[in-house]
């Protein structure tokens, strides 16, 4: 029995990893400048292990300073959004919980915009200040939703609380934008979600955060499983429910805040990816966490690839693509579950 179990995961995990790898190679290969695959490996080798020590400067510039950071950022952002979704859904024991729907994304965006407009977002540490301010926004949104929804955390109260918070922060964002017309279009474009004009610096901000959150999520997988069953059950077998819940919600908001401050509000990834994975492999977080991360990364690299190639040379905000891909899937879940909500 055990072996069968492992074999199944070898196939699914292996298959997903191959998809991931294939998408990555596709994403760094395709672009306005066509670069042959061997050249890509040469550039990677040149920058990581120093071999070969000579590469074509043109491909190097395009790959290393433009395409790689972008693809890697899409990868990490996708992974973070999916992980955030897993955490929110697990802790709130709710199939429709996701940072976007709960209003946490707009809370983060509000925080980030305040930092940008007030000028503390400029300078060397600007990126960190924007992220910090976004985190404060995310935290306020999370706590408000939590308080509004009450202890029971029922789906409809939670979603309604999310709608209210989302609307409130949406209004604040609109207000802030209308007060600063000269920055409006730039911020609006960022809000819609995009990976263009991002640099290595953005990746270095995000990577330590997602690594920490991933580690914590991994080592609280048993608690997450128990929350997904029932908070009472979790308490019965000895989980410190309040403490663990609080820790995980803080981490999830933190992750959301960083992601939003880097790539804007990208919807649907956090809700659709964990659901698809749950349907395939079940609710055990031992598999749900790594598979969702892998699938989120793949999905986002693919979405970004579509965003920059579909209407070349024009570029679409990636949020448009994820919404087009995610909305039908989300609608399907909603349709399927509406009786239970």
């Amino acid at each position, binding site marked *: 029995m055990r072996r069968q179990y492992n074999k199944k995961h070898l196939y699914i995990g292996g298959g997903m990893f191959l998809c991931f790898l294939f998408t990555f190679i596709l994403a760094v290969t395709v672009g306005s400048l066509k670069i042959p695959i061997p050249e890509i490996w040469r550039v990677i080798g040149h920058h990581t292990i120093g071999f070969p020590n000579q590469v074509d400067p043109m491909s190097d510039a395009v790959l290393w300073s433009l395409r790689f950071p972008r693809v890697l950022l899409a990868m990490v952002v996708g992974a973070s959004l999916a992980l955030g979704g897993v955490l929110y859904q697990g802790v709130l024991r709710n199939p429709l919980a996701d940072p976007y729907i709960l209003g946490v994304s707009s809370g983060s965006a509000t925080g980030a915009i305040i930092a940008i407009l007030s000028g503390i977002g400029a300078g060397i540490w600007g990126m960190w200040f924007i992220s910090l301010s976004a985190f404060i926004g995310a935290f306020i949104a999370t706590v408000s939703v939590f308080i509004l929804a009450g202890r029971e955390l029922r789906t409809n109260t939670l979603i309604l609380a999310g709608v209210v918070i989302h609307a409130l922060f949406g209004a604040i964002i609109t207000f802030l934008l209308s007060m600063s017309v000269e920055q409006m279009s730039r911020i609006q474009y960022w809000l819609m979600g995009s990976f263009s004009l991002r640099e290595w610096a953005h990746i270095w901000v995000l990577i330590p955060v997602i690594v920490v959150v991933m580690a914590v999520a991994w080592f609280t997988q048993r608690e997450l499983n128990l929350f997904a*069953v029932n908070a009472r059950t979790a308490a019965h077998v000895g989980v410190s429910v309040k403490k663990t819940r609080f820790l995980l919600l803080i981490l999830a908001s933190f992750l959301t805040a960083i992601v939003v401050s880097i790539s804007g509000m990208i919807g649907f990834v956090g809700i659709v990816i964990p659901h698809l994975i749950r349907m395939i492999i*079940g609710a055990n977080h031992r598999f749900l966490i790594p598979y969702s991360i892998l699938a989120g990364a793949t999905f986002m690299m693919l979405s970004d690839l579509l965003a920059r190639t579909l209407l070349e040379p024009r570029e679409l905000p990636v949020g448009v693509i994820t919404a087009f891909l995610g909305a039908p899937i989300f609608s399907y879940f909603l349709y399927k579950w509406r009786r239970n909500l």
Partner: protein
Amino acid sequence: MLTIQSVSKHYDTRCVVDGISLQLKRGESIGILGPNGSGKTTLLRMISGELTPDQGEIWLEEQNLSKLKPKARARKIAVLAQELLGDAPFTVREMIEMGRYPYLSRFETLSDRDIDVVDQILQQTNLSDRGHTRITELSGGERQRVAIARALVQEPEILLLDEPTTYLDLEAQWSLLDICKHWQKEKGLTLVMVIHDLNVASLFCDRVLFLQNGKCIAEGTPKEVISASLIEEVYGVSTVVIPHPETGSPQILHQPFMNNPRKEHDS
């Protein structure tokens, strides 16, 4: 092994449990009986640590229950209530393995011993061949067996049961109660159950406790306590109580409807 010292619990201004004291001995089974709203479930939730008493204390051997770490408490006390399995698509085995939580530190995975315990209990609850079935595909009786299996892998000394047989058919009820009785006899498990069926309680429990408006109004073996006059007093329904032909435990027969004018309706 468990001592309850005059505990009380208020919701707002209403006193739900009012100064109840009780001593539990190892390996006995106690039934908590009484009408809806008499405080049975609240009492049980104070024993499980979900609620803390406003007054009074609960002692587990030499330790105050409210001072015990959650995991340490869960190694001693397990709970079986209705429908605590949820609808997330876990497999039967995954669900039951969760009961080992109190034995694992954060960075540990299931040891061989943990897996042995789970295997044994899967067998005893007749679920061995259902290990990889998702719980969403089980029948009501099987779900309840999964729930009790998860409680038993905690290897508790005390098992609290909150209306464990409600909504189950006769076969499922008896198979569940059989499992509990077996553990009581073989492993000295102490059982505390809130139950509505007085006949089952009378056959199953060594001791029963009647609650009314949060107070304990009768306590003792079923033979000592269960009588037509007590049932009339507690539930306001007149009945005939006769001894069970095999065990002599009191069994309740209801009056034919025409001869049984309703005294007071209790939802």
